[in-house]
């Protein structure tokens, strides 16, 4: 395999963005601009599917490795994937074209700039998921802040400035400590190459501090309680496509980081800090679920539910059980699909009524039936109904948790019930009930593009709900090897 497929995946959206930059945007060629962006992202999507076909599931070795000298005698540009990262890459390339289709309805001005930001974002996100060098990882990880800051700030709602600043500064503050840790690793081990670091291991006496530095960055990005407060603000103010990107892909960077770096590089510290993660996760699950219950803004409710779902993910990761970590990854993929769909659902009614308040709606089931059906499906997927991908993830996570710590698992299971409560209550208040607000009668049902996007998201949600085998097969070997390496390290010390 000499064709640099991963670099092409990273570069292609940027090239598309560059192309858009030189296309003058006006009313007539807004369509052209959109097709260019869509075409680029679709090519990227098929390329990533091709990657999945070529991918060898029987090994946990990194594949498609590209290793080039980047800064001499310091950093190599090294990318490669294993079973854990490939799913996130596909999720990214899958969500981006849907985002681009969805801008039809929500983005009114500066369309081409918006698409440039989205495409550059895609480049950075793919970069995050396939970089095998800590500095390269940090570079992509941080660079993603720029387009997201602009997406929230330029195209966002009324409090967009506050939210954009909060988003940027919170995540930057978390990340700078990670940079200190990365440079320290370089001086401790002489390399920032992840593969080499896996082999060498990091001296146990440094692991705790390094783990905490990485944790500070990932905890903000995940986001974990109590540093989750930027997320509801960012979600509420971001345009629909921005929320989708944020929920579906950006939040997954931290979960991925926990598995790849916290578990992989600092097993001893991870073992020590597992109780901390458990406590924070359980608090996140219970506490933010209750907060979500009380929200009056639909987007805010879904944002808080994201925090709760990510609580499950972090819980699952640190069970260090095969099922737990598999569940976490499936939960992340599923949450990527479902929360994206839910934000789009909110976007659909928002575009028509310009209100995100739950109290505006009610009794729309007869007015927009198609919408109601799809919204129902995603609501159920979000609360983890069997037969949807959400169930598989949550079930596996809880299974892993029961193996590791009974009490934590019981409390987390309670969170599932509250989760069902707020999602169903949301659905009830928005879709069912009496039609009080007579303006709602004017609402039109889903148009073709909206229907297409939501169906696209519904298919994998259901498919992987009934048949999660393809996902599990892809990640199984990588995770079991990760766990055995982890256990060897922990036992040794």
């Amino acid at each position, binding site marked *: 395999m000499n064709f640099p497929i991963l670099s092409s995946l990273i570069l292609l959206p940027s090239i598309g963005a560059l192309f858009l930059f030189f296309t003058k945007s006006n009313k007539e060629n807004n369509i052209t601009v959109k097709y260019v962006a869509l075409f680029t992202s679709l090519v990227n999507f098929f390329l990533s599917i091709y990657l999945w076909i070529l991918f060898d599931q029987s090994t946990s070795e990194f594949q498609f490795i590209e290793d080039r*000298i*980047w*800064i*001499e005698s*310091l950093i190599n540009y090294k990318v490669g994937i294993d079973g854990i990262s490939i799913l996130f890459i596909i999720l990214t390339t899958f969500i981006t074209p849907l985002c681009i289709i969805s801008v039809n309805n929500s983005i009114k001005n500066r369309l081409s*700039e918006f698409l440039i930001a989205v495409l550059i974002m895609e480049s950075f996100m793919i970069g995050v998921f396939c970089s095998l060098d800590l*500095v390269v990882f*940090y*570079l*992509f990880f*941080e*660079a993603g*802040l*720029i387009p997201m*800051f*602009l997406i929230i*700030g*330029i195209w966002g709602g009324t409090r*967009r*400035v506050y939210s*954009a*600043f909060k988003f*940027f*500064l919170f995540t*930057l*503050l978390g990340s*700078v*400590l990670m*940079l*200190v840790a990365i*440079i*320290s690793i*370089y*001086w401790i081990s002489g390399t920032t190459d992840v593969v080499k670091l896996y082999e060498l291991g990091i001296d146990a006496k440094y692991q705790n501090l390094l783990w905490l530095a990485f944790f500070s960055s990932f905890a903000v990005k995940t986001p974990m309680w109590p540093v989750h407060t930027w997320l509801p603000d960012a979600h509420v103010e971001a345009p629909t496509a921005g929320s989708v990107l944020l929920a579906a892909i950006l939040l997954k960077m931290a979960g991925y980081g926990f598995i790849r770096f916290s578990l992989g590089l600092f097993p001893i510290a991870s073992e020590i800090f597992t109780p901390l993660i458990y406590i924070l996760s359980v608090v996140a699950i219970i506490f933010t679920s209750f907060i979500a219950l009380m929200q009056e803004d639909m987007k805010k409710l879904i944002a808080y539910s994201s925090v709760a779902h990510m609580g499950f993910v972090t819980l699952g990761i640190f069970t260090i059980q095969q099922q737990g970590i598999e569940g976490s990854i499936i939960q992340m993929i599923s949450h990527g699909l479902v929360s994206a769909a839910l934000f789009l659902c909110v976007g659909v009614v928002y575009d028509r009524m310009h209100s995100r308040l739950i109290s505006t709606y009610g009794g729309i089931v007869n007015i927009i039936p198609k919408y109601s059906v799809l919204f129902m499906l995603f609501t159920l997927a979000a609360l983890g109904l069997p037969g949807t991908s959400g169930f598989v993830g949550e079930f596996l996570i809880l299974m892993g948790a029961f193996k590791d710590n009974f009490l934590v698992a019981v409390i987390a299971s309670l969170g599932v019930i509250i989760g069902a409560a707020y999602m169903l209550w949301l659905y009830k208040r928005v879709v069912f009930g009496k039609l009080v607000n007579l303006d709602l009668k004017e609402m039109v049902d889903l148009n073709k593009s909206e229907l297409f996007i939501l169906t696209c998201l519904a298919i994998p949600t259901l498919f992987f709900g009934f048949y999660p085998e393809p996902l599990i097969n892809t990640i199984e070997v990588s995770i079991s090897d990760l766990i055995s390496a982890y256990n060897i390290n922990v036992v040794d010390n």
Partner: protein
Amino acid sequence: MSNLELVFPEIFLSLSIMFLLILGVFKKNSSKLIQNLSLIILLIIAVITFNETLGIEETLLFNGSIIIDYLSSFMKIVTLLAAFLVLIISSNYLRTFKIFKIEYQILILSSVLGMMIMISSNDLIVFYMGLELQSLALYVLATFNRDQLKSSEAGLKYFVLSALSSGLLLYGCSLIYGFTGSTNFNLIATQLNSNEYALTFGIVFILVGLAFKISAVPFHMWAPDVYEGSPTPVTLFFTMVPKVAALTVFIRFLYVPFLNLIDQWQMILVFLSIASMLFGAIAAIGQTNLKRLIAYSSISHIGYSLAGLATGSNEGIQSSIIYITIYILMNLGFFSCLLMMKRNNEYHENIEDLSGLSKNHPLLSLSLLVILFSLAGIPPLAGFFAKFYIFKSVIEQSMYFLAIVGLLSTVVAAFYYLRIIKIMYFDKEKEKYDTDHSLWLKFSLTASTLLILIYFVFPSQLIKVVSKINII
């Protein structure tokens, strides 16, 4: 004196200055001619320095009072190029204020001469001579727009405070001379006796004087006022060129004679660095004038390059030089934007004047966006790499506290850069600015933006060049 050709650039420059002065006096309305001649002279000297002295072995001249090595040649080229760029982008501004006079170019050339002497100095007296030559030229440059109250005030303030710091510096020199019996850096190094507390006092006084010249906290008070009052191109000159020269002297002074006393001066540098980084970041938040803001931001950036110097290692020196080079590039871009904010023969320099720039001037605001994110140190732009090298060398010496404070202050600093971006991109647009900028201005903006943007493609190039600088 077989090596006289090595100081040919300095000799050529001083002769040219005299020639231009005479030409300017005898030929009426010759400012345009002198401008072009000065540009050519600067380029010629840069080429000569590049060809003749870059890459030769360390050579001492005039009884060891002048040193020509890789560091001096590199810094001279940076100085010359920066001065060249300042000259080419300043003509429009000067014409607008009707101060496009021959003195401007000549003063810039003389200050460059002073800096070249500073950079090459290996002796306290030579160093002081160069310093005063450049300072005298800079005082006049600060007041160059003499009809404006603020400009005169800036010049006066700069003169008084700078004279004070020169006094301290001289006092330090005399102490060092008294206790080592020499003014030559290499000789001082051999005469060191770490038990002499007066020697430490001497170092402290000289450091204070130097810290003043690069406006490191707590000797920064003049910078915001002077930067705000001076004509914009002169401010640009202030933020870039004298800092390069002063930083070189910093390196030479600390690492040649006093390397063995590192325990004594390291603390001072760490303090200067932390104070500058934090203070620069926090004080800039409340500013409304862009030139004042960039003054505080430059204080903060100087803090980072001092952090590199505080490490006491070759990597630290190199990272500091890389930092200042990239910083010059970013500053050049920023001021090019500032010089483009012109409407009806009036330059606007308040933050509010940037409001909604992205609607009226998408390309200009995009460049400014890139430059600001780079100044904030966000990857993958050049500014990130500059900070990365600094923190790499700092952490290598296990100075974790310095690294963490530095990185936290980048977060604080990010706030005010973001505020500018917010005003440009999120706020309502105002009237359009003129677009008839000179070709050179457009060139310098495009070039600096592109270099910042694509620096990550070939980051090794600059390192390769700088890594030849080995002082220790």
